[in-house]
């Protein structure tokens, strides 16, 4: 198993971009869990749904715009907007009823979403994998050929991460969301409409997921079943980083993304097993995660 420097660099970039996508996905998951105490099992399935939507929108735009690269951006934005609205609707119509319930029942509900949306995807788009090919020439960096699109993903992920941080720490609504994580009742007592915040957070989480799916589409084919692998990795990320810690989620995403990317090279079948080994180790050694506070445990 010779790993030369070139493939080392290539896997690093591939791992970083995978980590970025995991971060976008897990941050929504973590945010929803932090604010509403709902562990959304269907997060990756909605991500997949967003990816398929992006694909379809792009097919439609390519006809009018003519260029693959030009069509991608509006397709991603439109899919993100649609998924935001879908998130709002799901929260208002269904998830809202589950807040007083116990965790397992909430999980069962979101699992029902996995089945429903997974099958809707099959119904609408069929069982073939979908993929977008962008006509981009790879760049030669440090002796290996890197798809420059990796930089787009890393840049987009970084931008959303910064935007999320800015939103949560610098805007009024972000501060309300963080306060709601801390104490729902207190926020509600101050006259802030908690239901609106809940719907908004759920919509935002789903929208970020859909955005990441769209951005990732040109380098990873999407298909049925991808969501199950991904959601479990997201759980791993959220637990390794620590529930409720955006920084922890970010670091853990990069760890999981890069470790996964190198394990694929060394032991393809066991890549996920290594992630779970890390997860088991973290849970035994620091159950509250690398960046979480012991209080929440």
């Amino acid at each position, binding site marked *: 198993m010779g790993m030369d420097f070139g493939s080392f660099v290539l896997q690093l970039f591939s791992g970083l971009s995978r980590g970025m996508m995991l971060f976008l996905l897990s941050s929504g998951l973590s945010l929803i869990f932090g604010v509403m105490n709902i562990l959304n099992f269907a997060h990756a399935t909605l991500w997949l749904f967003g990816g398929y939507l992006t694909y379809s929108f792009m097919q439609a735009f390519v006809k009018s715009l003519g260029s693959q690269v030009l069509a991608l951006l509006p397709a991603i934005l439109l899919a993100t907007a649609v998924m935001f609205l879908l998130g709002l609707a799901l929260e208002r119509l269904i998830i809202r009823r589950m807040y007083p319930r116990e965790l397992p029942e909430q999980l069962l509900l979101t699992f029902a979403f996995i089945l429903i949306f997974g099958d809707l995807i099959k119904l609408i788009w069929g069982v073939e994998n979908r993929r977008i090919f962008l006509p981009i020439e790879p760049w030669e960096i440090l002796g290996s050929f890197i798809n420059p699109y990796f930089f787009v993903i890393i840049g987009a992920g970084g931008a959303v991460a910064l935007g999320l941080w800015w939103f949560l720490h610098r805007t009024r609504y972000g501060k309300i969301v963080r306060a709601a994580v801390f104490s729902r009742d207190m926020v509600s007592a101050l006259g802030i409409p908690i239901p609106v915040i809940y719907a908004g957070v759920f919509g935002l989480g789903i929208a970020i997921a859909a955005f990441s799916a769209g951005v990732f589409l040109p380098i990873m084919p999407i298909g049925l079943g991808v969501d*199950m692998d991904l959601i*479990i990795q997201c759980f791993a990320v959220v637990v390794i980083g620590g529930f409720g810690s955006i920084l922890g989620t970010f670091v853990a995403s990069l760890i999981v993304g890069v470790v996964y990317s190198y394990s694929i090279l060394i032991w393809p079948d066991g890549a*996920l097993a290594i992630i779970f*080994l890390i*997860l*088991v180790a973290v849970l035994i050694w620091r159950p509250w995660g690398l960046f979480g506070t012991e209080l929440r445990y």
Partner: protein
Amino acid sequence: MHADRSQRRWILRLIGRLGFAETITLGLGLLLLILPLIPGKYVVVVGAEIIILGLFAMSFNLLYGYMGEISFGHAAFFGLGAYTTALLMRFFQAGGGEVGYGQFLLAILMAVPVSALGSLLVGYFCVRLTGIYFAMLSLAFGELFFYIVFSWYSFTKGDDGIQGLLPPPFFRDVTQYYYFSLLVVAIAMGTLWWITNSPFGYSLRMLRENKNRAAFLGINVRTCMLVNFVIAGAFAGLAGALWGPFQRSVSPHLLSCMNSGTAVFMTLIGGAKYFCGPVLGSMIYTALNGYITLYTVYWPLTIGLIILLVVLFMPGGILSVVDQWLRRAQTHRNASAAEVAEDPKKGGGASWPSGFSKSAG
């Protein structure tokens, strides 16, 4: 109308005397006993799946309903049991071509200690945590077991699974295998009944309600949880052992988190607070799965919508709704019998404890 009412009274009296869970268990048992009378082999096939998965879900409920912890890796022990039986049967087949009766029973029985050992290993770490962390660690261990079985090709045949698990001639007939499974599961359920109604079972309920208080009363919380984890794993292994020879094959997907989820859904659909809730859940889930697939390829959509409706409108599972409904009927009967013009809510309550939660306190 009158006949209907007296019939309902008869049921209420029976429940009042036996207890709600006991009556339902008895009813389900009788139903499963006469199920093969329905013509057609397919009913029996689905029935055997109901029984085996019902035991699997019941073993899960030992952790969830009784101890109050949710495991997403319980299928690992189901799969461990299934693979133990499968590998032993392959071993015996390699020796003499066919699996003998003694060898077959040995292969099934050996699944119990192997899964118990596996769950001892996993449980040792899991019982240190509670709540969502318990769930996550069990999920991680479950996936770890899955990937070990999935990638250890030389031993487990990886993704191909193990085929050709032909049981001895008597067990090849579906109906005969059905009754064999029913017997094994009935014995297992009897043991589970004994365990859950022993002082140990009541300690578990106490752990569910308040671990700190239990510790103050001198219960060794971790040991108690670990013993329960091992028992649950052992029964899941027994269910897995029955599964392999019935399907004639095993595959790594028996260990997947989706299969762990199945146990969770069955339990929640049926009612986690009732002894046989998981079996009822298995009956509903497996039958829907078995029959909806005959009519549509979109069964995940159908079953997803059904789960959605059950979760939204039947909190606590089907048995919980039935229990409450009968309780109201009983209250109503008591009130009208006494001819007291009181608020029916104040009238004499039902004469059986709700689920097994109240009987603990």
